[in-house]
């Protein structure tokens, strides 16, 4: 047995203890100058939960829009754009400006809130 295989087996044994803890690749989106905790409070204040189920935000169990569970893993935003801050932040500010037919209203009034909310959403794995 080669050294690297036995090393892997050892690591495997260690991994046994943490089955289901973490996947190998966690999406690493960092929102510059975004404060996730403030974002979480903004989500509660703006009642995003009336339409979206948002983990970590109390009473956010709406089912009008898609659930935001696993948001950081979502490949696309609103089914149209890559799920990246440069699309997400303007989307949060003014969804109809980007998708005229969308049912999602513009509720986030300033850039900093959008940035904070984005920062929180990208913590949802």
């Amino acid at each position: 047995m080669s050294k690297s295989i036995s090393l892997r087996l050892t690591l495997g044994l260690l991994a046994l203890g943490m089955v289901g803890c973490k996947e190998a690749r966690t999406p690493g989106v960092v929102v510059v100058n975004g404060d996730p905790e403030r974002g979480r409070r903004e989500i509660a204040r703006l009642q995003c939960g009336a339409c979206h189920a948002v983990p970590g935000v109390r009473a956010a169990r709406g089912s009008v829009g898609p659930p935001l569970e696993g948001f950081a893993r979502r490949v696309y935003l609103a089914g149209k754009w890559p799920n990246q801050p440069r699309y997400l932040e303007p989307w949060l500010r003014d969804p109809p400006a980007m998708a005229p037919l969308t049912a999602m209203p513009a509720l986030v009034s300033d850039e900093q809130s959008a940035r904070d909310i984005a920062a929180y959403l990208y913590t949802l794995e």
Partner: protein
Amino acid sequence: MLLVGAGALVATGAIVGTTLLLSGALSTNATKQHFRVTHRVLDLGLEYSVRAAADDVPAPALGLPGMRARGAACYREHCVTCHGAPGVAPDSFALGMLPVPGNLAHSAAAHPPEWLYHVTRKGVRMTGMPAWEYRLSDQSLWSVVAFLEMLPVLDVDSYRALMATTVDASCESRVTLPLHTEGADVLLRQYACHSCHQIESVVGPRVYTGPPLIDWSKRAYIAGVLPNTEENLARWIMDPPAISPQTLMPDLGVPPEHARAMAVFLLTPR
């Protein structure tokens, strides 16, 4: 005592198996060969699985020229890419598949028509061979078998001649899926909805390309633009870009009756 021993054995097996799995020592690379014994065991599994299932459907007469011509058309359109033909190599990508797509002159020489029909119709798990019953009419499936029956006796010239004389023949695709015998979840799988969406009662990857469709019946909007009614959902499934031009969800060529069946299925709470 015996029970304790058996229990310990099972537990040890589970630990060894899980360790192997999590260590990454079991390679999923298509560059690695199977062990010879693994290959033999899988071959035997295929042989007996198909043998047990294939007896139900007796072959129709396969010698009719029209049938062979249709089979040639289907073969040209759908099979030669992976399986090659006398004097014709498979496409480059197919040469690197693991397991390698079977040479069908050999298959046809080694197996009865019912066997060939069953494998073509039902596909083979984890090999890349799809179940063609969802893509081709039953007539076409038997036509493919009729064509395969000829393969072992064709040389390069006679294969070329046969293909040249059948250029006008066309392969008949299936227009409706056998919905009456199977549920609409088969449709969701055959349109590969679960390659982008997580769906209850469809086993698939934990994927987040499109939104998860869990508890879909409770959702108010489709794609954020359409109220979530059965009719709207069916419309959306048939042609997403027609409703939301920038959507990344493609038009999958779903006919109305399939779209309707999937919409009903998704909207049924479970």
